[in-house]
């Protein structure tokens, strides 16, 4: 049951930050619903839209009794999903993030999550961190690899 809820949430959730925020939104919304506890989280329009877009059957799967246990399992499942750190030299718009997520979920795993991190020194392209291993596929790395050739050509140009 928790898998089904998580899959539903992951449909339009692409990054780990998004997943964490949305799980908290859902938790606080249900907490308010079941126990009348006021939300501590500042809910933006985008957050409210997402909550409104959720299938109502998801809410029916929670009750006052199973609320805590269900959410604990849900959070544990969310933590088990491996996350790719994607270093970019620019800040991509949401559409591109969705496209990237689609690419990852098509090519690697249907519940693929990633985290975008900005590094302007990359010049262009990207660098990745997967399961603690860093790999640079950026233009900076290409320039470093071609350093000797570039320097010699630069020196010839100076002469």
């Amino acid at each position, binding site marked *: 049951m928790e898998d089904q809820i998580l899959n539903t949430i992951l449909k339009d959730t692409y990054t780990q930050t998004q997943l964490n925020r949305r799980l908290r939104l859902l938790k606080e919304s249900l907490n308010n619903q079941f126990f009348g506890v006021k939300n501590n989280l500042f809910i933006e329009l985008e957050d409210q839209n997402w909550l409104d877009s959720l299938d109502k059957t998801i809410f029916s799967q929670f009750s006052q009794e199973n609320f805590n246990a269900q959410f604990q399992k849900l959070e544990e499942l969310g933590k088990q999903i491996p996350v*790719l750190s*994607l270093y*970019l*030299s*620019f800040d*991509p*718009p949401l559409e*591109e993030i969705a*496209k*990237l997520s689609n*690419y990852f979920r098509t*090519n*690697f795993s249907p519940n693929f999550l990633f985290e975008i991190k900005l590094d*302007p*020194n990359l*010049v*262009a*392209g*990207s*660098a*990745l961190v*997967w399961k603690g*291993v860093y*790999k640079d*596929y*950026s*233009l*900076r790395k290409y*320039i*470093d690899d071609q*350093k000797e050739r*570039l*320097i010699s050509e*630069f020196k010839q140009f100076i002469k």
Partner: protein
Amino acid sequence: MPEIILGALILIIAILFFREYYLRQKLLKHFDQEEAARQKSFELIHQAIERSQAILADAELDSIKIAAQNSLQTKKYEQDLEQKLASSIQETSGVLSKEESGFRDKLQGSLQEFAKYLTDLKSKADLAQQSNQDLIKSQINQIFEKFEQNLADFLAQTEQHSVSTIDTEIRATRQLINTYKEEQLRLIDENIIAILERTLSLVLAKKLTLKDQVDLVYEALEKAKIEKFIS
């Protein structure tokens, strides 16, 4: 019975009386003989004393005679001895004068020989001094030659050492310069790359469109996929 005992007693007493009488007579006779003998011995002692006195008087006379004879004999011996000593001294002085003249001659000869010896010795000493001077001169010359040779060797070695040290220093300095040069060139190269990266970053940020950027990201992801970096 008592008459018998009385008679016996009287007999015994008479016997004892006669016996005592006989013994006393015998003792008196013996005393007389002893007195005669003592008298005789006194006479003998007196005779002996007289004879010994006579002998002593003879002995004194003999000793006086002998002393006089001795004194006379001693004077005679002294005179003989003086005569013999005088003759002996005379003979000895003759011998001594002879010996003295001989000794003088010998001394004169010895002095002449000694003077000759001294002359020879002086000439030998002069020769030895000359020889020593020559030897010292020769040795000093050798020492100077050796010193000059050593000094020349030392100077040559010092020069060689200095040249070697200077060469080493020059090599070390060249090495240092080369290292510095290489380090500076490496820094320049790194600076070139840094400038290139910075320039490209600035230029590409303005020149590359979002599509170009995204295309490059997908290109990178494709590479990662081919390399199976993400599994």
